[in-house]
């Protein structure tokens, strides 16, 4: 065995360039699989981390039946949630498992400060928003119930917004203009960073909900009632999330007079959404890794090709070895080991390439790629399997060569 490995290494070293080119397919395949798996694993871990950060007692109520697939047509649907719905959920006694409620009206809009301006998400909500969604002011103070009641023109802004509009100036007390109306900046949120999906949670502008409803009045009413884009709810604790979802669902069905068929709203927990996202990420990762694995197959065919060439080139050597007493199994082993060394070496280099690519992703800072030992073990196993599978045919051809003809071969 040791001798066979030495012979194989000898033969490979004699054709370095060819060996490297042959390994390239395996290197790319294994590298891509390792990189994708560790990136995918890292993304999932990041998502789970986010669930922990946000808290798992968060519940969203949105119009339209999420499950019936109408989310994408929500904007044109007639199904609405109103401010009254939010107040009903918040009413003591209606939903005992609910701790806090923050209705939310969202509208895109331009925020102007002197010559600077940016187009971003404007959110109208109530003070409960800061605790439910964990938007904590870094400086200043979030607006109050009174501000909501008075529809005061005050805004709390995300860290990115503050930086883009005011630069190094102190944002508190500055007047920005939205729809030409003046708004006073009362708070800047703590920087939350980019989420695993790349959305910017620091580019928000939050104002009292009544202010927003008045600002976008025409869009924000339906049949004389104020509509909201969504309702943020927090359950009393993690254990009450399911119960709270049930209570909200029954309440809203009652209010919307829905007896049978599909609801015109959806109640989802943050955890559900994150779980869904994580599972999508997982499927996507697996799918991409599977595509990358095709490269392994191509690499294997490359190995088979080069081994067939090698068998032909070394016909005389095979003839000689047989003449001096090599059994067919000796020749088979020799060529098989050569093929496995090719693919295994490719696999090892591929693993290093994969680790390098993962490190590159880490440098980008979006999230940490997680290198799993499992993936590495699998890559090694697959490399050996590819070498054996694609090496067996050329090796058999070598093993069954007729020594007389092989010796005569020019």
């Amino acid at each position, binding site marked *: 065995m040791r001798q066979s490995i030495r012979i194989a290494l000898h033969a490979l070293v004699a054709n370095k360039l060819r060996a490297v080119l042959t390994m390239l397919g395996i290197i790319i395949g294994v590298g891509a699989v390792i990189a994708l798996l560790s990136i995918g694993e890292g993304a999932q871990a990041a998502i789970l981390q986010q669930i922990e950060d946000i808290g798992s007692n968060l519940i969203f109520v949105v119009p339209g039946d999420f499950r019936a697939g109408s989310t994408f047509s929500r904007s044109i649907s007639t199904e609405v949630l109103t401010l009254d719905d939010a107040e009903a959920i918040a009413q003591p006694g209606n939903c005992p498992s609910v701790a806090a409620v923050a209705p939310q009206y969202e509208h895109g809009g331009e925020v102007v400060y002197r010559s600077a301006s940016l187009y971003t998400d404007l959110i109208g909500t109530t003070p409960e928003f800061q605790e439910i969604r964990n938007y904590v002011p870094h400086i200043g103070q979030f607006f109050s119930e009174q501000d909501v009641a008075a529809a005061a023109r005050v805004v709390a802004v995300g860290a990115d917004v503050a930086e883009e509009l005011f630069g190094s100036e102190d944002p508190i007390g500055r007047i920005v203009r939205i729809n030409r109306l003046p708004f006073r900046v009362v708070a800047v949120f703590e920087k939350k960073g980019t989420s695993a999906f790349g959305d910017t949670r620091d580019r928000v502008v939050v104002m009292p909900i009544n202010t927003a409803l008045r600002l976008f009045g025409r869009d924000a009413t339906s049949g004389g009632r104020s509509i909201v884009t969504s309702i943020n709810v927090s359950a009393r604790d993690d254990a009450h999330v399911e119960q709270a979802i049930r209570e909200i669902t029954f309440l809203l069905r009652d209010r919307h007079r829905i007896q049978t068929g599909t609801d015109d709203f959806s109640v989802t927990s943050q955890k559900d959404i994150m779980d869904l996202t994580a599972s999508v990420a997982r499927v996507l990762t697996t799918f991409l890794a599977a595509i990358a694995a095709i490269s392994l197959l191509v690499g294997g065919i490359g190995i088979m090709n080069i081994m067939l060439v090698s068998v032909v080139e070394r016909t005389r050597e095979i003839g000689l070895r*047989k003449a001096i007493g090599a059994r067919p199994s000796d020749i088979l082993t020799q060529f098989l080991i050569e093929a496995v060394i090719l693919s295994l070496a490719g696999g090892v280099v591929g693993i290093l390439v994969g680790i390098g690519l993962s490190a590159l992703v880490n440098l980008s800072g979006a999230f940490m790629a997680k290198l799993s030992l499992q993936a590495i073990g699998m890559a090694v196993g697959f490399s050996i399997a590819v070498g054996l599978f694609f090496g067996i045919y050329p090796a058999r051809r070598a093993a069954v060569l007729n020594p007389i003809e092989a010796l005569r071969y020019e």
Partner: protein
Amino acid sequence: MDAAVIQLKDVTKVYRSGQVQVHALRGISLEIARGDLVAIMGPSGSGKSTLMNILGCLDQPTAGQYLLDGVDIGRLSDVQLADIRNRKIGFVFQNYNLLPRTTAVDNVAMPLMYARTRVRREKALDALAAVGLADRADHKPSELSGGEQQRVAIARALINDPAVILADEPTGNLDSKTGLEIIAIFQRLNSERGITVVYVTHDQEIARYTRRIIRLIDGHLAGDEPVARPMVAELARVAPTLMGG
């Protein structure tokens, strides 16, 4: 000279190439005694290569019987044939057939590997010393002259103490002076170690250094006579002491 090491009884070999049957050997019967030094001669197409292949256990007779050291070769499997070649036969080829990029000592040791022998290098060095190449052990074939390469090949043939060394035109690629040195080595191995040597050649010159000439024509035995006074080749460059082993 005890029992015959090679016994052929009415050996025939028929090749089939497409529809045509080629009768390469048409009933050859002969014996070669242990320790003999024999030349098998014949023009091309006479069947001497076929005979060589059968003697070397690379091929099996279509009919008839071949006993090598008492073993009936016709009945053996591929694996058994490989083992017989490994233990009982040493091949020396016209073009040396050394592995390039492999040192002389490793080339010589190769049959030991297939014999699953553990201690290889020492034995290989001994064999190299026997052909006067102890100082070239770690040279690669490309660094050796033709005569030296052929001596490495002879050392390789010697290494498993074979019953027979089969040499196929062993001097065909060498100039006459170097050729004679190779012949001298064979003669010494034959006389000092009692190793049976069979040349397959069409070179009359070499034949004169043997004790017996077997002639083939058209697959038939056309002559088998002892050489009256075999010539002795001088070992010009190989020190006689090295031949002691």
